[in-house]
């Protein structure tokens, strides 16, 4: 059943993207590890880490495209799910520091010792186990999305109102995580990580592995989301996007479908966040910033909403631009991003991939028509 389900997700575009992503996932770390530093094809470690970050953003974009592109839920708070997954991983990484922290406390992370806490808060228990942390990486964002969706979608909050409350959600979390007494390191967040499952997070091998895993997550995420949108459930999602009340009168429980897809999407975003944190070495409340979630929407719009592959393309392209811009003209980046969004909305409403597909489809149709006309 699962096999057939996944195979249905494979069309040409998806298959090619999977191969490219996996090839990058293997070749870039291989070049970083195996080629000598002066070699023309050697990828330096800072780029490896940078691309790894892009890959986690690409997964976040996929998650967002699933709900926005296919079900019409414009979430302006998806960064929150990404950050929650990141915090769950960060908590594991903090516990791995053990007595190597500045204060040498074997149990309490440094910031708790600093705040004079005597024991670990209850919600930090279990995070010393990798398996538990991994479960929380999907469970925490999933549960939040489920509860949020349950209330919002059952009360039939849609459109701009829904977008605003998703934005409020991530903003509320931003404020909460800033507080020291929340027990997540406040302003500074969680950092100074040492190991992950026994390997040094800074070592070349670990970085290469994390990079590969980030690409693997993009690939698996693409395959699963593609299978979802091509299934009958995916058709229901599109139906909801196009004519919500029609879908309801045909007998589908719209709120249930929205809640399910929102939750699945949040879990995927959480996984992306969990791979982001060990690569950048820090997670702090800034990840909940509303602007982050809005940027993710722009990646999807630029790449092509409702195309999945476009989400990946958009996330990588926009972040590449951001890296370049913030190096060359840092103060202009936000204007460039805003301008890009306006330009894409006006001139490429289908985004890069959507425009490309429409163009190739037209060419194919013209080619098919040409021999017929010649006869």
């Amino acid at each position: 059943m699962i096999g057939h389900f996944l195979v249905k997700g494979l069309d040409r575009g998806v298959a090619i993207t999977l191969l490219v992503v996996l090839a990058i996932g293997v070749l870039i770390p291989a070049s970083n590890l195996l080629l000598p530093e002066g070699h023309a094809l050697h990828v330096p470690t800072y780029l490896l880490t940078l691309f790894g970050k892009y890959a986690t953003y690409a997964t976040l974009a996929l998650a967002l495209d699933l709900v926005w592109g296919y079900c019409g839920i414009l979430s302006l708070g998806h960064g929150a799910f990404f950050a929650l997954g990141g915090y769950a991983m960060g908590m594991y990484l903090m516990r791995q520091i053990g007595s190597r922290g500045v204060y040498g406390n074997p149990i309490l992370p440094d910031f708790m010792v600093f705040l004079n806490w005597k024991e670990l808060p209850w919600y930090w228990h279990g995070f010393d186990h990798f398996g538990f942390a991994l479960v929380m990486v999907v469970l925490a964002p999933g549960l939040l999305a489920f509860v949020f969706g349950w209330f919002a979608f059952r009360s039939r909050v849609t459109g701009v109102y829904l977008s605003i409350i998703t934005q409020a959600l991530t903003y509320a979390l931003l404020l909460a995580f800033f507080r020291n007494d929340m027990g997540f390191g406040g302003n500074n967040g969680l950092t100074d990580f040492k190991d992950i499952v026994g390997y040094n997070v800074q070592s070349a091998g670990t970085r290469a592995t994390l990079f590969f895993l980030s690409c693997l997550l993009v690939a698996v995420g693409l395959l699963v989301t593609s299978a979802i949108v091509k299934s009958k459930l995916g058709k229901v999602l599109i139906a909801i996007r196009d004519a919500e009340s029609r879908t309801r009168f045909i007998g589908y429980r719209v709120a249930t479908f929205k809640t399910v897809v929102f939750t699945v999407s949040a879990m995927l975003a959480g996984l992306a966040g969990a791979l982001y944190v060990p690569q950048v070495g820090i997670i702090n409340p800034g990840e909940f910033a509303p602007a982050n979630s809005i940027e993710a929407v722009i990646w999807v719009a630029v790449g092509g909403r409702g195309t999945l592959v476009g989400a990946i393309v958009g996330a990588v392209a926009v972040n590449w631009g951001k890296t370049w811009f913030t190096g060359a003209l840092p103060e202009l980046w936000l204007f460039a991003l805003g301008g890009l969004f306006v330009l894409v909305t006006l001139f490429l409403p289908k985004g890069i991939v959507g425009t490309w597909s429409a163009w190739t489809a037209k060419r194919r149709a013209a080619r098919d028509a040409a021999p017929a006309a010649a006869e």
Partner: protein
Amino acid sequence: MTTDIAANAQLYLDDVRVSFDGFKALRGLSLTIEPGEMRAIIGPNGAGKTTMMDVITGKTRPDSGEVLFEGGSVDLTRLDEAAIAELGIGRKFQKPTVFESHTVEDNVYLALKADRGPLATLFHRLNAEEARRIDEILATVKLGDRRHELAANLSHGQKQWLEIGMLLAQEPKLLLVDEPVAGMTDAETMETAALLRRIHDSGKSVVVVEHDMAFVRELGVKVTVLHEGGVLSEGSIDHVAADPRVIEVYLGR
């Protein structure tokens, strides 16, 4: 007495009242549809015809009154839209609404009677019986040759027909059809009347709301005239057309 009527009715509305911010859209509407009956409902704009359908299908909760289905066994006012659809009440909207970015056949596929749960739909595979049903329905609504096209590309009349096809796919016991021939040519109007009669002949109860008198004549069934949220007159088309109150409402404006 009323309970007797309810016990034999497919659909039973008694003294239904709905108001929107003080405006009374339905003021004590009562209506009984027998099993297997086809009924035409006419009435001027704003009479409450669409609101009546909203009440039956769970979109609008009445302020008071009874709305019972299947011999009075089900109270529709307690159910949501999806549950009512699942019970076997299908609805065609006044403004044709189909899923524009789906193909014509996918529109029917989504409407086919099947388990509506998320997990069941996730792993659902189109089976031979369903494919046969889709063929049959597309043939009935004469859209077989356009099945692979996006519904967005259909003409207005074809969208109306596709929507009727989607209704059939749900295999409802009762069909509510809101102004099915609005914007159709005369030929299309007559074909639509024939289609609805065929659906009725297959044993379903049908409630058709329509302005178009020629169309209502063509249907040849009992007519209910709504006016200002209540029933003004009821009977054969000739009976209601001769009713002075009806004449006043229609000609008086």
